[in-house]
């Protein structure tokens, strides 16, 4: 099975500044790929390069198994997108905007417009001019436009922006449905993990223009580490007890009152008993999961080394 998107050392620099540097990403067919990174990390630029709106200064792009050559436009028929702010012809109605889109895309199936409007729950307002729409409605309409031509690939840049909780829920369901029923590959960018962790199959972390890591989410979930978190008023004493009395070295102090013990060979009962016997004032002691958020945060922090070593190896 061919991948929908593959990039090879994809780069873009404006003058001397690297906006995107040596990105190798792979979006498999029929998967939701969460593109995670802080603002200004280069997510939009990568998406624009996939659409041909921005020209790469280095590297290659392969879409639907074919290498993109400058000036090729046929593949654009198969892509739906929402990049940055949703732009419309404001004076035209919602429906007219979608019809115009279909004309330009060369997609002639009037029913699909109704379907798309229904999927984003914008039925009944389609005869209104878009300038009367709220931001959230425009966002929904933009998503409707993107899916109205039944694309094989959806590029969605921060699609959740401006949506209310109900809208967010709706879109999550919609994206899953598109993936499962139509086999659509979806690339969704976001700066918040919580927005995409529920739907993404794979997550690519980009920071400072570099793809720090690309991982299947299942893999991350199984590999996230457990630890025991101790809350205490006397962290110094607790640390002393841990090293001297229990022989634990793999722990770390987080903030003034919290210690995290990663060593799993000492049972929690022993740990609490020893601490109490040594007069360490304990407020709480809990077994915890390293959250996904922390996992990715660590990754971004350590990402520079990682990317550097990968480049050296390449």
């Amino acid at each position, binding site marked *: 099975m061919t991948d929908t998107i593959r990039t090879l050392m994809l780069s873009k620099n404006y003058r001397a500044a690297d906006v995107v540097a040596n990105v190798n990403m792979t979006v498999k067919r029929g998967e939701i790929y969460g593109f995670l990174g802080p603002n200004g990390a280069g997510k939009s630029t990568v998406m624009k390069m996939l659409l041909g709106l921005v020209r790469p200064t280095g590297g290659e792009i392969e879409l639907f198994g074919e290498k993109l050559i400058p000036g090729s436009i046929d593949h654009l028929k198969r892509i739906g997108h929402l990049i940055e702010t949703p*732009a419309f012809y404001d004076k035209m109605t919602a429906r007219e905007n979608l019809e115009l889109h279909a004309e330009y895309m060369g997609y002639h199936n009037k029913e699909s417009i109704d379907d798309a409007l229904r999927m984003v729950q914008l039925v009944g307002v389609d005869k209104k001019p878009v300038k009367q729409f709220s931001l959230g409605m425009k966002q929904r309409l933009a998503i409707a436009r993107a899916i109205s031509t039944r694309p094989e690939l959806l590029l969605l840049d921060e699609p959740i922006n401006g949506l209310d909780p109900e809208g967010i829920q709706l879109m999550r369901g919609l994206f899953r449905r598109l993936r499962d029923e139509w086999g659509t590959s979806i690339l969704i960018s976001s700066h918040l993990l919580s927005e995409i962790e529920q739907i993404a199959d794979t997550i690519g972390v980009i920071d400072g223009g570099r793809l720090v890591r690309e991982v299947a989410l299942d893999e991350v979930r199984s590999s996230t580490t457990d630890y025991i978190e101790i809350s205490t008023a006397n962290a110094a004493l607790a640390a002393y007890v841990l090293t001297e009395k229990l022989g634990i070295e793999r722990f770390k102090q987080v903030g003034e009152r919290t210690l995290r013990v990663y060593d799993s060979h000492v049972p929690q009962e022993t740990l609490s008993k020893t601490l109490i016997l040594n007069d360490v004032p304990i407020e709480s002691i809990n077994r915890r999961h390293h959250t996904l958020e922390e996992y990715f945060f660590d990754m971004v922090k350590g990402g520079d080394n990682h990317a550097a070593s990968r480049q050296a190896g390449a």
Partner: protein
Amino acid sequence: MLHLVKLELKKVSLRGYVYGALIAYAAIAAFLLLLYFFEGSDSSAPAFTSQFEMLTVVNTMVCATFIVYSSALLSGLVIGEFKDKTMSLLFAYPVSRKQLIFAKLSVVFAWCFVNIVLGNLLIGTVMLTVNGYVGQVGGELAAVELLRHVGFILLQGVGAAGMSLLPLIVGLPRRSVPATIVSSIFIVSIVNSNNNGFSLSSIVAIPLILAAIGIFGAYLSFRNIDKADVA
């Protein structure tokens, strides 16, 4: 290609522009009729010394008006799309960018040309008819002279339509609607300014050369559009 032009027309709400053009015709006619009646042949310096001159003045006014009017359309179709970010939408369609732009510019070109021809025809007819009844401007208008004038209008229509694209050079890099319209006024004031009955546009070659410059200028501003980054 024709399909692309049709889609462009859908976007601009042509009806509004047509009404605008009709109002412009009426305003020009009203202005010239005022001149005709109040600065007629009785005064020491009459507004029109011959019927031919009358038609020339009609043509000058129509050209000036519609070069500027076309720049408004040009702003809406080209500059406006960049400003509203709908251009990046257009450029992500499976349609050649050059064809898209060509469709837009053809609309502007055709709009300018059609209006100049139509405006001359309508307002010229009104002026000649009124004079036929009032008879303030004397002399005959020879059929040959009239025919030559029609030819001149057609040529000048092409010239003005070409020139109407020239403001792009100024307006496009700045993504500015005002800059586009102001530069069109500037062009009109140079080309159509009247110096003792002589204006640049009265020499046939000049509007054609300017048309060539206008079209070439528009081409230059879009030459690299296939390679350009659309932010």
